[in-house]
């Protein structure tokens, strides 16, 4: 009995040595966490990845979006992060601050698949925190206008508006021409993306002083807030949350409003519900900007490697695979998410899609939000401040001043940490 132990030990040692020396990631299992609907869809692509890389097995874990953030942070605290993960790009700053993300610039430079210049610059920038590249964009989410062509024509508007001034004229004309009760636009007040999109368009930074304080008393934000508030003051938009409208799609086709500011997933929803008579009567258009076609938010998710991973090379292969234009195109066909690479958009399936074209156009101009880990809380505060103006009738200057104060309070720890780091560096 006892004589068997040394052999076993030797075997074990050999295995360890062999495992440590192996160049080719053979017989490895990488753990991949994906979220929501993406996780359901990506599994079919993973089977193909495994066929191309016989040595690598992917263990996919599906996480609901509502639980994702907690789960990731708890996994970080418990040292249980996966090898590769889909990460909302507003969370990248957070996990970068935790130093949980592997810098990937060197891998990107060496890659024959991932070409940085092929990506839309605004979305690529969301993955760069303090100058370090922490991930590769997987898909983009930006918000633009769905609109009723027939209602615009009815109001005498020939071309979709391109500037805020043109948009205002169009909204006024639509309300004037329509039956009583018609609104020009739906901007649900329970979502931060709408006011944030407008605020990003002015080009004014949202935070100042090394992103340590709010910059909401600036002329740029004041202009965006004034424009946003005027839409409600004039009665062009109803001051309601999305939950108060039982069915945003039906109401759109019923003509309750001519514009709806929303995201790419709604292309599919609108298509599914369109009455046959209105099939050609609606479309998408880039968001009008202050002085010309405007910017939009650069939401979406990225693929990241965790620093704690022991199988980064194999995991990177998966990132490369999912970043290939042909794979991205199929991913888009399955789920409707917007690909972040220009070459993917040249694929006939996407280039020929009338409704996606406005998104393609706007993606060239998307802007990242500040890369601070407090960003989601700040975005919520922006929403609450605009809601107080629109629903609570608070003066705009006061709302902006209060917003600055709240954001400054949220960022207090960041300022302190930055000071500490600077002193330590000296």
């Amino acid at each position: 009995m006892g004589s068997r132990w040394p052999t076993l030990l030797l075997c074990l040692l050999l295995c360890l040595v062999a495992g440590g020396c192996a160049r080719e990631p053979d017989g490895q299992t990488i753990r991949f966490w994906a979220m929501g609907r993406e996780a359901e869809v990506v599994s079919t692509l993973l089977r193909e990845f495994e066929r191309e890389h016989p040595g690598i097995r992917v263990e996919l874990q599906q996480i609901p979006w509502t639980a994702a953030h907690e789960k990731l942070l708890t996994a970080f605290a418990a040292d249980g992060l996966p090898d590769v993960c889909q990460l909302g790009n507003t969370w990248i700053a957070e996990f970068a601050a935790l130093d949980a993300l592997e810098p990937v610039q060197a891998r990107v430079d060496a890659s024959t698949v991932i070409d940085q210049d092929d990506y839309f610059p605004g979305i690529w920038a969301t993955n760069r925190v303090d100058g370090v590249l922490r991930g590769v964009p997987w898909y983009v989410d930006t918000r633009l206008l769905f609109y009723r062509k027939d209602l615009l024509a009815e109001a005498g508007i020939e071309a979709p508006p391109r500037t805020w001034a043109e948009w205002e004229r169009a909204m006024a004309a639509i309300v004037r021409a329509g039956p009583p009760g018609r609104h020009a636009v739906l901007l649900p007040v329970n979502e931060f993306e709408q006011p944030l999109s407008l605020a990003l368009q002015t080009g004014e930074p949202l935070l100042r002083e090394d992103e340590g304080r709010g910059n909401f008393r600036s002329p740029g934000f004041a202009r965006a807030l004034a424009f946003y508030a005027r839409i409600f003051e004039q009665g062009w938009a109803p001051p309601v949350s999305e939950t108060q409208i039982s069915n945003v799609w039906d109401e759109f086709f019923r003509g309750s409003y001519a514009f709806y500011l929303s995201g790419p997933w709604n292309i599919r929803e609108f298509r599914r519900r369109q009455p046959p008579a209105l099939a050609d009567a609606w479309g998408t258009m880039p968001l009008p900007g202050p002085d010309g076609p405007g910017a939009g938010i650069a939401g979406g998710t990225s693929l990241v490697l965790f620093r704690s991973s022991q199988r980064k090379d194999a995991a990177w292969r998966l990132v490369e695979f999912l970043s290939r234009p042909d794979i991205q195109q199929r991913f888009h066909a399955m789920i409707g998410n917007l690909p972040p690479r220009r070459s993917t958009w040249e694929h006939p399936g996407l280039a020929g899609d009338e409704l996606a074209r406005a998104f393609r156009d706007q993606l060239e101009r998307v802007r990242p939000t500040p890369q601070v880990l407090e960003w989601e809380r700040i975005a919520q505060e922006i929403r609450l401040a605009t809601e107080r103006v629109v629903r609570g009738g608070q003066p705009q200057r006061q709302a902006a001043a209060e917003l600055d104060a709240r954001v400054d309070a949220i960022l207090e720890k960041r300022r302190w940490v930055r000071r500490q780091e600077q002193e330590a560096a000296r």
Partner: protein
Amino acid sequence: MRASLAAWVFAAPALLVLAVFFGLPVLAAALLSLTDFDLYALADPAHLRFVALDNYLALLRTPLFWKALGNTTYFVAVGVPLSIAVSLGAALLLNSPLARMRGLMRTALFAPVVTTLVAVAVIWRYLFHTGYGLVNWALGHLGIAPVDWLGDPRWAMPTIILFAAWKNFGYNMVIFLAGLQTIPQELYEAARIDGASRWRQFLHITLPQLGPVLLLVGVITVSGYFQLFAEPYVMTRGDPLQSTVSVLYYMFEEGFRWWNLGRASAVAFVLFLVILGVTALLLRAGRRRDLL
């Protein structure tokens, strides 16, 4: 002396478990609530600061905390009496000499207590769905327009109260049932001879005799209902318009969504004080009536 030493030895295992799994965590949370433990501190312990009572003071200045406390108070003020009334009613029915198939009924009424909350919450969400829910369908037959039960700020909390009362009444019912069976039948007999109606028998015999049980049930239910969390977490996520954010849900968001564990610990201690205060009042009221 000997006897007390032996007592300590016998109690030691239980005390040890309590100290390790309850005392220490509570102490740690108390210390945590005096710091600003957050993501920065998680990344680097050097970023942890001692802030004394700042978390508590900031909490008292946070509108959402007060809103959560208001929502929770609403839930307790309506939910506890409703739940106790339903439990008592069910217990009285089961205890009635006319009741048939008592064992089956007792099991059926107790079943919601032992079912998984998440599973039944999902079913309730279907029942109360605006479009194809059974409740709105039934109301429709009575000519009542559909109500957006979980999406309307006015109705979301009442729906959750109804759900919680249904889910929990069985537990108290069993306690009441035990209490009812200890009331001597002679008292009812004497009352009947004096010509007391059923209602007067209930008021003057059943209720006073159940006094201590009522107090016990009241204290347990109040402290349980103040810790409202799973129902809004599964059914509404605090929406609509934060009308179902409870104190515990707020604590969860602070702690595990924003990772402000210092602030979240402070919430826990404030909630503890609130529950302690309310149950102390209940106990004092009970003592005045000689229920203890």
